[in-house]
């Protein structure tokens, strides 16, 4: 790049220098949904069969990119939850806890295989129900979900090796409540370790994304897993509360917001139930002057715009060292200008639909708050579909620690940008949050990486990468981001009693 061009870029730091909206027109490349099998209406999956909800209520689940109804789903009541818990208890006492561990493993392996066989169908439904780009559901969500079952299946008959000097025992019935951002993957994160450890399950998928969990129930039915070992009860908050408060559940596992997590922790106080919480986050993504800047910019984009920013570990606070701040922000704006926002089913799409109108409203409120606080907004000049719930990728520049867009979890494609000078300063700023789920560090110096990764208060730290997940890798937070780990050897502990 010539000096003249460089100067020009510096002057235009506030404006993107590239405009992909006109330069490159992509031909639509939609994934076909012709092969998927969706019923018009889904009942509850209890004790190995499909059961009508006790009060007869059904709610609609919509495609957030078209606002069209995909299916009707049963509204589980307290009575239904009770039925599911009874089934899970009976299955635990009579079948699952008595089955030799290696036989248990075979069922879990079988579920993994069946997901792999039907992976594309699952990916399509995941993108239709939740709005995430097909590229992500196809390449990340579904394969990871299958791998999670495969990984934990192998642990079932090896548990005594995981906890030296202890005799691990299953707990009983686990009540599991999962969010809408990674519907099938979260179901896998919850069910796979629970089953491997010898527990039975009552799981409630999120209200706005129940379909892949129900398709998983079909697979579980097909797998021949003994009736009652896994029960799927759909519904909204009241259904979740019925699970949390059910007296015959031994363990609650929840992934969702910190606010709801605190309510659950309070609700089960004194009941003796075990608990794991995977809650919110406001991760710092830190770019040092000596980082490989182009890679770092990719990492920033992946960190905050992956899954529309509906990620608890999203890198939603960017810290750029002052010396490279202008350059990084210019590169970031250029990169954002090339992002394609639109049809989740299109294989070229980078940012799909916001999961629900409620979530879009919340994000838009934060956009207003950010402006009112004095943040400088940047959004690329991209088009978004007229129908459906969409939000342009957004930067807030000139923010400071006290801004709400810096402190609070937005759960959308909104990145708050700050700069820093010294290592001590950025550690102080990065840790200045009640959350502690994840963090990112970008530098080419190894000793600096280890200094940072040691001092950042977060359960997952990505160095020179971001938003990577693996069944063998423990995930979970420090502080108000929750407790307990999911994935890896450490993910077994929440589902076992150590005698």
């Amino acid at each position, binding site marked *: 790049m010539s000096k003249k061009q460089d100067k020009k870029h510096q002057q235009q730091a506030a404006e993107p220098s590239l405009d992909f909206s006109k330069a490159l027109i992509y031909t639509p490349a939609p994934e076909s949904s012709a092969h998927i099998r969706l019923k018009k209406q889904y009942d509850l999956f209890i004790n190995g069969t499909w059961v009508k909800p006790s009060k007869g209520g059904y709610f609609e689940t919509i495609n957030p990119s078209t606002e069209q109804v995909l299916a009707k789903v049963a509204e589980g009541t307290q009575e239904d939850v009770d039925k599911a818990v009874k089934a899970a208890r009976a299955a635990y006492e009579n079948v699952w806890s008595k089955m030799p561990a290696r036989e248990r493993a075979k069922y879990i392996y079988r579920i993994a295989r069946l997901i792999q066989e039907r992976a594309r169908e699952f990916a399509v439904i995941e993108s239709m129900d939740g709005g995430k780009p097909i590229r992500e559901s196809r390449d990340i969500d579904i394969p990871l979900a299958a791998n999670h079952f495969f990984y934990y299946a192998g642990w079932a008959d090896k548990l005594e090796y995981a906890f030296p000097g202890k005799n691990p025992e299953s707990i009983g019935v686990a009540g599991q409540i999962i969010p809408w951002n990674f519907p099938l993957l979260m179901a896998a994160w919850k069910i796979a370790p629970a089953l491997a450890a010898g527990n039975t399950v009552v799981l409630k998928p999120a209200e706005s994304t129940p379909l892949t969990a129900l398709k998983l129930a079909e697979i579980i039915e097909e797998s021949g897993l003994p009736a009652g070992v896994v029960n799927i009860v759909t519904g909204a908050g009241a259904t979740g509360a019925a699970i949390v408060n059910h007296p015959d559940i031994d363990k609650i596992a929840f992934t969702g917001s910190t606010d709801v997590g*605190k309510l659950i*922790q*309070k609700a089960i*106080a004194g009941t003796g139930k075990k608990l794991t*919480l995977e809650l919110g986050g406001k991760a710092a993504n830190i770019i040092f002057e000596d980082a490989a800047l182009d890679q770092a910019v990719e990492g920033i984009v992946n960190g905050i715009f992956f899954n529309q920013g509906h990620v608890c570990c999203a890198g939603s606070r960017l810290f750029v060292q002052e010396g490279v701040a202008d350059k990084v922000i210019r590169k970031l704006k250029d990169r954002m200008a090339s992002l394609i926002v639109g049809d989740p089913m299109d294989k070229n799409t980078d940012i799909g639909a916001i999961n629900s109108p409620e979530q879009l409203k919340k994000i838009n409120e934060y956009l207003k708050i950010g402006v009112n606080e004095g943040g400088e907004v940047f959004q690329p000049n991209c088009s978004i579909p007229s129908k459906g719930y969409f939000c342009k990728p957004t930067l807030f520049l000139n923010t400071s620690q006290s801004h709400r867009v810096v402190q609070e979890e937005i759960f959308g494609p909104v990145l708050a940008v700050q700069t820093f000078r010294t290592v001590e300063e950025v550690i102080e700023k990065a840790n200045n949050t009640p959350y502690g789920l994840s963090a990112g560090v970008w530098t080419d110096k190894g000793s600096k990486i280890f200094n940072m990764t040691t001092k950042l208060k977060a359960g*997952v730290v990505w160095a020179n990468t971001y938003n990577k997940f693996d069944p063998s*890798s423990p995930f979970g937070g420090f502080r108000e981001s929750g407790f307990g780990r999911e994935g*890896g050897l450490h993910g077994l502990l929440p589902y076992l009693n*150590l005698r």
Partner: protein
Amino acid sequence: MASTSTPKKPTAKKTDVAQNNGQAEKKQTGSSRIKVQKTYKIFINGQFPRTESGRYYPLTLSDSSIVNLCLSSRKDIRNAVVAAREAQEKWAARAGLNKSQILYRLAEMLETRSSQFIEELQLMGATKESAIKETETAIDRLIYYAGWCDKFNAIFSSVNPVSSSHFNFSSNEPTGVVTIVAAEESGLLGLISVMAPVIAGGNTCVVLASESKALGAVTLAEVIATSDIPAGVVNILTGTRKELLAHMANHMDVNAIYLHSNKAEEIKEVETLSALNVKRARIEFVSNWFEPKEENPYRIQDFIEVKTTWHPIGI
């Protein structure tokens, strides 16, 4: 007062001597010297203040003497948490070997002071035999956890074979500041059995000692103060659960709480208040602290956080 304590006149005014352990001492030793009584204070940030509230509670000992212990307040807890927070990162940053040696040193010093602990346990009602057993087990337990400081991370860590081209490992970090509501029934061993693993893991703590068996806890504080344990790493308060339990559990700058209890209302209160800041609450009731199973590294794991680090492999 001078008239009652003049050693040169052993027989004089004998009847004026107060009915306290000065009397007991005199009878035991046959000496006319009046024993110097200890003021039992609380331990915050390496110092021995009285409770800021100025209050006390009396504890009657087996020799009928009475000691006045600090009736600590919410403010004392808050001061102690400030000290514990201040000390935490530096304590955690010390090498495992260093922490190990510091805990071992504490055990060495307890050993040399063991007769005092044995005496105090007897004053609080223990038989000589059980007092010796409790003191010796407490010292041995400290040495046990001293040895874990630079080893538990190897047991509880993992290198994770992820499918992508990344190096990925999970290691352990302290949860942070821990409040400990120590066992009521086992004033010394019950306290050390929980405090030792908490600090071995790199946490700092604020301990509420046993109300009825508090002497050993205060004397332990005096030993800690002259050991190499940095100020603020261990803070020990005396007082009542009734008043302080809620404040131990609801403090927003405390990351975890240990409660020794089998009382439903105490457990519910602590768990409910812990939800305010997603505090980790470890609650148990141990009926026999002497059992070998009560001594294991999983007590360290209860107060550690697993951190997973990723880095790409490649150019």
